[in-house]
């Protein structure tokens, strides 16, 4: 790859916070470091990965509205977690986390356990869990890809 061929396809993947170093050849055939803001094929596969997260989030909302899952299910997917990672972050057993995903059990969860979920999901208060508002939560999701 030549220096002038280093792509600068900006899809705001780096949010202006940094650029990536790429190695490319200059006019004399010497390798130099060139900073890049992005490359289209890569943007496509990154968007693909986030697309999946988005689909999971929407699926979670559907399931919650149908009464199949508790709000924890939404925040789990929003944080790109599965039951295993969530269990590790909260310190609960995985089967406990799975139980908490059931709406009937969720209603009975103790304050201290909800507090733990609040911390892991970085919520402002446990109310976001108890009085789950899908529309409001969706608006909070910062970056649109």
């Amino acid at each position, binding site marked *: *790859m030549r220096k002038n061929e*280093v792509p600068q396809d900006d899809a*705001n*993947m*780096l*949010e202006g*916070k*940094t*650029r*990536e*170093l*790429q*190695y*490319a*050849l200059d006019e004399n055939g*010497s*390798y130099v*470091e060139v*900073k890049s803001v992005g*490359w*289209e*094929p*890569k943007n*496509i*596969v*990154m968007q*693909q*990965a*986030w697309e*999946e997260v988005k689909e999971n989030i929407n699926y979670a909302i559907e399931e919650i509205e149908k009464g199949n899952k508790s709000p924890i299910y939404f925040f789990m997917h929003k*944080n*790109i*977690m599965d039951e*295993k*990672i969530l269990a*590790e*972050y909260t310190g609960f057993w995985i089967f406990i986390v799975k139980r908490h995903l059931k709406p009937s059990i969720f209603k009975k969860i103790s304050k201290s356990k909800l507090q733990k979920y609040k911390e892991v999901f970085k919520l402002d208060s446990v109310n976001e869990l108890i009085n789950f508002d899908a529309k409001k939560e969706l608006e909070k999701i*910062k*970056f649109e*890809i």
Partner: protein
Amino acid sequence: MKIEFNHKMSAHCENGVTANLLRHYGIELSEAMVFGIGSGLFFTYLPFIKMNGVPVVSFRPLPGLIFKRVNKALGVKTKTYRFPKNPEKAMSLLDEKILEGIPVGMVVGVYNLTYFPAPYRFHFNAHNIVVFNKDGNIYSVSDPIMENIETISYNDLKLVRYAKGTYKPKGKMYYMTYVPKEFDLRNAIKKSLNKTAKYMTVYPGQVIGDRAMRMLAKDIRKWPVKYDRRKAAKYLGSIVRMQEEIGTGGAGFRFMYAAFLQEVGNLLDNAELAKLSEEITLIGDKWRLFATQCARVIKSRNNTDITYDSVADLLVEISYDEKAFFNKLLKVNL
């Protein structure tokens, strides 16, 4: 005492941390040189191990190896700690070392790394940073991926040092205790070339080097038959992500290695190495083409000219190119 730390950005975090720490102690090596001496060029395909639901494809050796190999080659002594159950100890030891004037390298997860670009914040736990100052509750961080020095709070740092998921860092931290004034760079280079080539050619096994690429190519052809469109595309996309996502310097480290070969070719006045540098550059260009074509397969529904079969064909071609390249590298006379 405030540590003056000369932060230099790099493509890959582990190279960058190694180079930045060495520079702090007076050894100036480029990222490409660190990567080369650490025998960082690699390829592996592990279809039986899934990470985040995708079979593992990697263009680099296990995390931590480059740092280890470079230090061994140069005679640098290091100290490494892990505190699986004691985050408080991991943080207090860090504070202690910083006060002593020692910059500390550590492994962190990027998901909760507050200064990181949000689109890159997945549950990836093998990121390396150097922490070198503490001001009240705020640490100064030299993160090789970032252009500038960043800061992070005590609580956030503790959180990322104890990230959960695959490959937990468990508070792993390391620093240099002895850095020699003189070292045999020529010998280090020579050994590393041999090691890289051997890993990619001689060592037995289907899962490393050009054979792994052909095995992957074979599986790529099966994906659209075996799985639905989404899953097949996800698998293909994950290869491109491993190849190009932050840290490889383009083409799955192939360009970085070309830069290394060029640098040592000049250093040792060896025309053979300069020629090999050109060769791996061409291979890198093919990897870039591979990524472009994969992205097109993923994006378009009815593509007739570029398919899973054609990207697999290209991968097979690359595998033979690499086989020839590494066999030549193995025979280089230094």
